[in-house]
């Protein structure tokens, strides 16, 4: 056996491994996992503001962390929900407006997926409403995956490459990775 042949085999194996790694890119988890950790004790939202009419909300009985930052389907669903739930009303298409920009490197309340999830679900002072009980948890995780892709924190191979409608900003998969700078008070990261 000559060394050249060994290197060729190694390269081929690496190529196959890389190709196989891409298989999960489009995987659609169409049903919600049935079992999961019991629902955490109700956390009082950080703010009183809520989208829609105030009231009991729908409390989910099963809490499942379904975040997948390298899955194209999850991120694209998040992109769709970003529009449906009018996130753009305050954050525009990520450039910010009444709310902070999401496509820059600044993360007031942290850039970790769990921190973004808490920001969406509990709300934050000065305007971010609490979506707990307003949107299902798996949709919140899809939004987390999409919001991270807006500043290049997601895999380029999986981030959205086009928008359904007119878009003022370049596609998420072309954006440069911006090193996150957490500027505000940092909520603790729960899951490793």
């Amino acid at each position: 056996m000559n060394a050249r042949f060994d290197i060729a085999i190694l390269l081929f194996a690496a190529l196959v491994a890389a190709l196989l790694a891409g298989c999960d890119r489009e995987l659609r988890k169409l049903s919600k996992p049935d079992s999961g950790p019991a629902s955490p004790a109700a956390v009082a939202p950080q703010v009183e503001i809520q989208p829609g009419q105030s009231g009991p909300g729908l409390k989910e009985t099963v809490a499942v962390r379904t975040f997948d930052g390298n899955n194209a389907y999850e991120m694209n669903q998040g992109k769709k929900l970003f529009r449906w739930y009018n996130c753009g009303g305050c954050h525009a298409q990520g450039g910010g407006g009444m709310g902070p920009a999401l496509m820059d490197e600044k993360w007031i309340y942290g850039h970790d997926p769990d921190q973004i999830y808490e920001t969406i679900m509990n709300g934050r002072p000065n305007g971010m409403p609490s979506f707990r009980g307003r949107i299902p948890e798996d949709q919140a995780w899809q939004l987390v995956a999409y919001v991270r892709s807006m500043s290049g924190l997601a895999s380029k191979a999986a981030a959205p490459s086009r928008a359904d409608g007119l878009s003022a900003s370049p596609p998420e998969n072309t954006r440069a990775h911006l090193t996150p700078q957490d500027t505000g008070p940092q909520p603790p990261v729960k899951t490793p």
Partner: protein
Amino acid sequence: MSPMQRVLESAGTQAAHIEHLWWITVAVCALVFVAIMIAWLWALRRAPRADEATPPDVAIATTAESKSRRVVTGAVALSALGLVALLVASVQTDRALAKLPLEGAIGIRVIGHQWWWDVYYDDPDPLKTFSTANEIYIPVGKPVVITLQAADVIHSLWIPNLHGKRDLIPGHTLTMPIKAEKAGKYRAQCAEFCGLQHAFMALTVNVLPQPDYDRWHDAQLQSAPEPAADAAKRGHDLFLSGDCMMCHAIQGTTANARFGPDLTHIASRETLGAGRIANTPENMAAWIADPGKFKPGVNMPAHRVAKADLDALVAYLGTLK
């Protein structure tokens, strides 16, 4: 009574033209088929019989085939005539379809979504507009212009008993004029592959006599009533403060979102999930809990909520007649 979906039992002017053309095509094709079979059998019968000792037939190499040439020329002319006749019949059908008089037509806007039909009854008076989903009601003998739009991908509306197919294309608006002549319930189906649940994207067309249609129309214009029972009241509060109102609308409440079907009169509909399951309280509860069980990939998310909350929601939706 399950709705009918048959091309050959036309219930409207347009479908009658198409059915007519279908029968002409079948008749011409049958004639051609029979003629070819007869010619073939005749050729078999008069073919020269031979055995191993018979010398090869070299006649075609030495004599002109004037007779064969005549037969072939005649057959080609006959075929061309048949095809031209079909072309004329087809063009005539198209002309007839386009000539439907549309005075006093009812305008209905149908928007295709993955995987359901959003239906709007527009009116110059904004107080007389309403929306419904996965069902159309039209009166007998009155022209209806269906305006077709798509929200996401290409769909196609096909009501075989009333008209042929027409596509719903994102960014374009097409129309489909129809006129029903026979009361009844007809099934329509998405006829352009539009994703995972394409096969479960059905629409029911209810053709009613004018007085019945007017009654239905007036009922649809009503806003949702205030719930009276305790369970329904709790369901009402959950609906308006929970996930539901993020996508659905109920006229007369603050729920106004347009991403899912309008639920103002959900209890009066016969099916859930665009014809997927019957609209019963048990099915409604199962649908809210996990729509993906019935239509994997559907945009409505699963709701793992306490049974008491689910029952309250179903009780409230049951009051939306």
